[in-house]
């Protein structure tokens, strides 16, 4: 009772606000719950669905394999499935501080090629699958994981270049960063999909997925660079001087003194950049790659399942939300784990 009074009805204005909000919630939430859960059908055929008044989740249960795997050959679905399982296991262990060690890094280095081989096939008796047929969730995850993993170090290097004392390198980095940050990702994706083939010598082709992947990496790296530069500039000058007075060379002082501290203070903005990079992988829809958004749209263009877009989009939204939300949770956890100052305060 006391809690309600204190948090909801402390002042007349607050009471009015509470009443209005409650009214809006009561008006919107029950119909939604009724639509999504009570009157919904989960496994009915589309004809049954169309006559019902609730949500038709069977558009997803019926087409789940296509939404998730796209045009990957039906009999081979276990391969991308296994790859994703490996990825999730690796991510799970990386999330946990206990398991973070050199050995885990080794597992990552071993795991990535295994996933690649599983996807591509061609050896060990696996039927080769053209990358044009890759799609759905594995493609989204592929673009995201490689995009983030490659953009981060590239961004750090660009940031170091931008604050370097060598004018030519500094200028190159500034031009690159500002150019990329000034244009939308779409223009880079267009460049990768329609212009880049023109820049290659005759006869050489690079798969569309790799070109899009490179565009995403180059784009994200520029944003990471700006965030990391903020961290580098926020460092106390004394740290640079201390490193120099210890006789450390540039590489050593960056590796051992400056970067560990600078990267730590920019964890939250870095993660929000990485989250938006993850969300931005959905833009490959525009250059007609079949990521999970495109496969779900393909389902919707089937006359049998037309008109159930809300259900499908909510499903995809939940997937993206889970991904982004766990990333931001992880960043909060990482921040706490790396908070060395707190340890000193406790003593």
């Amino acid at each position, binding site marked *: 009772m006391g809690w309600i009074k204190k948090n909801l009805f402390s002042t007349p204005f607050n009471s009015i606000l509470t009443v209005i909000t409650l009214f809006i919630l009561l008006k919107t939430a029950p119909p939604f719950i009724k639509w999504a859960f009570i009157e919904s059908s989960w496994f009915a055929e589309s004809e049954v669905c169309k006559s019902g008044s609730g949500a038709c989740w069977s558009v997803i249960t019926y087409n789940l394999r296509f939404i998730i795997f796209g045009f990957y050959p039906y009999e081979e679905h276990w391969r991308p499935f296994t790859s994703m399982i490996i990825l999730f296991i690796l991510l799970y262990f990386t999330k946990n501080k206990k398991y973070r060690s050199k050995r885990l890094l080794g597992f990552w280095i071993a795991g990535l090629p295994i996933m690649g081989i599983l996807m591509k096939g061609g050896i060990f008796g696996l039927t080769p699958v053209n990358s044009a047929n890759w799609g759905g969730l594995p493609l989204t995850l592929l673009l995201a994981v490689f995009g983030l993993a490659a953009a981060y170090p590239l961004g750090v290097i660009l940031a170091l270049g931008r604050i370097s004392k060598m004018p030519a390198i500094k200028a190159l980095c500034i031009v690159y960063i500002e150019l990329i940050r000034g244009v939308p990702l779409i223009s880079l994706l*267009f460049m990768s999909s329609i212009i880049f083939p023109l820049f290659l010598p005759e006869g050489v082709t690079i798969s569309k997925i790799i070109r899009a992947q490179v565009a995403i990496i180059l784009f994200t790296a520029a944003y990471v660079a700006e965030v990391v530069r903020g961290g580098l500039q926020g460092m106390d000058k004394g740290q640079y001087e201390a490193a120099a007075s210890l006789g450390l060379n540039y590489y050593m002082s960056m590796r051992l003194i400056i970067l560990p501290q600078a990267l730590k203070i920019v964890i939250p903005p870095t993660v929000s950049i990485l989250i938006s990079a993850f969300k931005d992988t959905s833009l490959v829809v525009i250059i007609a790659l079949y990521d999970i958004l495109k496969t779900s749209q393909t389902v919707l263009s089937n006359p049998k399942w037309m008109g159930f877009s809300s259900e499908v989009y909510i499903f995809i939204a939940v997937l993206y939300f889970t991904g982004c939300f766990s990333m931001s949770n992880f960043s909060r956890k990482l921040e706490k784990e790396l908070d060395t100052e707190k340890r000193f305060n406790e003593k």
Partner: protein
Amino acid sequence: MEPEVLEKKTPFWLDQKKRSVICQIAACLFVGIIGWYLVSNATENLERQSIATGFGFLQKEASFEIGESVISYSAADTYRKALIIGAINTLKVAVIGVFFSIILGAFIGIARLSSNWLVSKLAFTYIEVMQNIPILLQLFFFYTLFYDLFPSPANALHPLSWLFISNRGLAVAAPLFHPSYKLVFTAFAAGVVIFYIIKKIADKRERRTGKIFRVFYLSIALIIGLPIVTWVLTGAYFKVDMPVLSGFNFKGGIVFSPEFAALVSGLILYTAAFIAEIVRAGIQSVGNGQKEAAASLGLKKSQTMGLVILPQALRVIIPPLTSQMLNLVKNSSLAIAIGFPDFVSVANTTINQTGQSIEGVALIMAFYLTFSLITSYFMNLYNKKMALKER
């Protein structure tokens, strides 16, 4: 005896100065060679496919229609004009989007800080959900919302007497223009200018003598009163152009296409979530001590807000806010996915028709770069002005 150690020359790869020169030359060479390689490939490929280069195609007839445009346009016009219309459409989305997303964002940001648990949690949920779902997905969602869920124009939703929502978009009543409105606008502009001058003089006097000149009522009188008086004097003309259903769509008033409505509402709702976080952080960044100090100086609540809290909060808010606005402009390029003819979408059609892909993408990049560079120029001016003056 000469110390011989000093005579020894450092080898050039350990000499910092020489090493840095070598590094830079190597980097420039590397970039130059890659650039040259790509360009030479491109010229060769273009020659082989006999694609003409240059911007000559801009003068050719576009021969495609554009769904909506502010100025008149037909398929017989040039590509140049088509692109200009795309640019205007982008600007339209940007201006409306920025304006409303700031209002909504500030509102949600303040709600997030509310002492009311329900309101604060609701704002928190909104921010988390919107920030964690790709904007493209949201745009698709709003777009299909308009097409699948809203009724046909014949049974359009009619929540307010001047608003119709249907699957053909939003139809809104618009006041009809009358020549006397020109005078009213002039009066409004004059009111703003006069108020600005008086405010400057009053501020100067306040600094010199300490006498406070209340400008609040004067500002209302000048900025709102003056145009109203002019309006009444010129005959108080007021007529509204109501949207009327004719055939399959609305005529009259202002009709926003579903594409436009979906794009703008999606951008506003998405960007507002980010702006809300910025506003919240900005307000929280001003310490409690500042409020107490202002109170102990005897400042009133409104003065505390205007003279102490806002100036400090804005210093924190403005830089990330501008980058959010730029993000909104850049995100508006996703219009192509739902078929709104913005600059990217028109340029893309141009590329498909003419095959001038390099020029087309270059135009897109130049267009957005201009936006970013102008904004960052003004941001630098602002930062210089607002930089903490340490004494």
